């Protein structure tokens, strides 16, 4: 046996002992009870209620507040806007979750809508932390929002409030849609009324296509979202399609410079929306166009208000909250 082979065997033996020891140690220190991945499809399959939640989803933070489970949140995120004056520690969520902060808070669950790496999720589960994933492959609409409310209610023991919120949502949607169908569209010359949501001008004409909650807003407000015909999700639309479909009403994100719509070369320049000044910028209700939750009802109410000049009356919110969930100036 030559010396290289002897050394090689010795190295392999030492390695096996060291690695074996380390594996045994880490197997022993790993949490005995693994966390679970929970989605609206799996439902609540936990034996316990969540009481120390890190919410990396501003929409979920708002929902938990409305459910009466805000005291169970131990960590929030920098995008949380409702309830205002949040005093929770901000957990870094981009480009990845800050697991150190999450462990340090002794959280029992993390709620998120973003796609984090499998390795990070596995770290959570191995340390006994549940992962509640609120994204929906088929796109988020009000049916999905309802399921999310139910799930969060069950997970936090506030299921009764979730039922109340869902009933309020369905009743409000029904009211808003029937009212919108009855409003006069004659000032727009031709029907059906064509609308466009301009989300961002960074690197294209970003908008909300089919299978988005923003598209649902248009549907309930009886406005045809021109972007829904061409693609699903949030995407950059071909300007030729904008020119061809020529929107009559535009909902603009706060970041859009209104004067740029009228500039030379803009596909919106000759649209009825620009020519008739039917341009409406989201301001106080900005977050409702990025966060799918129960407050989106107020986004539809606002669209109807600006498009038709009408103010449909909504049923009053069933839960008494310190902070009004309706950010609109209309009530």
């Amino acid at each position, binding site marked *: 046996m030559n010396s290289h082979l002897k050394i090689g065997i010795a190295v392999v033996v030492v390695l096996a002992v060291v690695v074996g020891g380390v594996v045994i140690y880490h197997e022993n*220190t790993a949490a005995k009870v693994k966390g679970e991945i929970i989605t609206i499809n799996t439902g609540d399959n936990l034996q316990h209620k969540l009481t120390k939640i890190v919410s990396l989803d501003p929409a979920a933070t708002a929902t938990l507040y409305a459910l009466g489970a805000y005291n169970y949140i131990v960590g929030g995120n920098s995008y949380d806007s409702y309830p205002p004056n949040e005093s929770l520690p901000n957990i870094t969520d981009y480009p990845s979750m800050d697991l*150190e902060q999450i462990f340090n808070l*002794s959280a029992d669950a993390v709620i998120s809508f973003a796609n984090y790496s499998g*390795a990070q999720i596995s770290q959570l589960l191995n340390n006994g932390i549940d992962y509640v994933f609120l994204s929906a492959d088929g796109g988020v609409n009000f049916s999905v929002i309802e399921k999310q409310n139910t799930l969060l209610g069950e997970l936090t023991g506030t299921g009764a409030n979730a039922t109340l919120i869902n009933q309020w949502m369905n009743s409000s949607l029904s009211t808003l849609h029937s009212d919108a169908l009855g409003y006069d569209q004659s000032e727009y010359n031709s029907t059906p009324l064509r609308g466009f949501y301009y989300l961002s001008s960074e690197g294209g004409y970003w908008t909300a296509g089919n299978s988005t909650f923003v598209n649902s807003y248009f549907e309930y407000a009886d406005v045809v979202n021109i972007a829904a015909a061409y693609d699903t999700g949030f995407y950059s639309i071909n300007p030729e399609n904008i020119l061809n479909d020529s929107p009559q009403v535009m909902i603009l994100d706060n970041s859009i410079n209104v004067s740029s719509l009228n500039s030379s070369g803009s596909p919106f320049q000759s649209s009825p929306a620009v020519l008739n000044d039917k341009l409406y910028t989201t301001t106080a209700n900005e977050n409702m166009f990025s966060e799918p939750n129960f407050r989106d009802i107020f986004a539809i109410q606002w669209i109807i208000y600006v498009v038709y000049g009408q103010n449909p009356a909504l049923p009053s919110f069933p839960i008494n909250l310190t902070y009004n969930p309706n950010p609109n100036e209309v009530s």
Partner: protein
Amino acid sequence: MNVTENERVKAFVQRRREMKYIWIGFLFLLLIITILLSDFVGSVRIPILNLLEIYGSQIPFLSNFVPHGYTLAQEQIIVQLREPEILGGVVIGASLGIGGAAIQSIFRNPITEPYIIGLSSGASLGAVSSIVLGLTIFGIYTQQITAFIFGLSIVFIVYFFALKGGRIHPTYLLLTGVAVSFFVSALVALLLFTNINLQGEAFFWLLGSLENINWTVLYPVAIVVLITSYAIYLQHRELDAIQMGDMHARSVGVNVERTKRITIFMVALGVSASVSISGLIGFVGLVMPHLSRMLLGGSNKHVIPASGILGAIFLICADDIARGIVPGIVVPIGIVTGIIGVPFLMYFMRKLTGGKYEG
């Protein structure tokens, strides 16, 4: 040359050899210190006493005598997050450094690195495919496993394309590697183009990061890297000869093709495994072998281990900066290695060699 002069030369050679071992010992000590200090870097501050207790609790037999004044959260942060990340830095940095030293010897080219034989583009294709196509065949580790398989596969394709009459010519292999890499990179771009919503996720994988490393993925990769690194080290004499040219190597009895085949396979295996869990981390494989040669001369007997140790130290330090520069946010390590590494190399090149280093 008289006897005294001969003895003086022998003593000089002996002293030089000892100096090289002292350097390697010093670098190893520096690596240990870097590892220990890095355990302090993170978004949560852990007192030194608690850190020492957590260290002690991990040592078999000693753990019963160590006070447990730390919290479960502190133990989880150190044992489950920081330790695998730091040791991942050691494993990946070492594999890139050692792979770089071996590849530069085979190609006799100072600007080559392990990625030149198609590893990076292949691993990118695997990782991006799994992201864009939503593959889940290997569960939550699909991305890592597909990156590994594709990285290795592209190297084999490059190798067999470049094989002519049972021989590999370094220039032909280099050009084939570059050409295939361009082709595969175009496929990666095409995949990203088809789903713009996933560009962010793929983008972060392409920039590299150590923070996704946990014990589950680190164990198998560490074993692969240890075995392949040792196998590469065993070729150090043959690689020294090949550095002088294939003709010279054959004249001193080296089986050139066998050495190249073994070395390329081992580099591909080790670096593919590393890249699969970290994403693409540039600069280490290119520069650490040069830094080793500046410190220890040209023999691969010293350059290979020194490149491994320096690669590990450099990557841990880069990761510390990536974790610590913006509190709570981990900047992709590929950005740090480029921004910090290049001025660092330029400084050392001038400082250590007075501009005379020729690779």
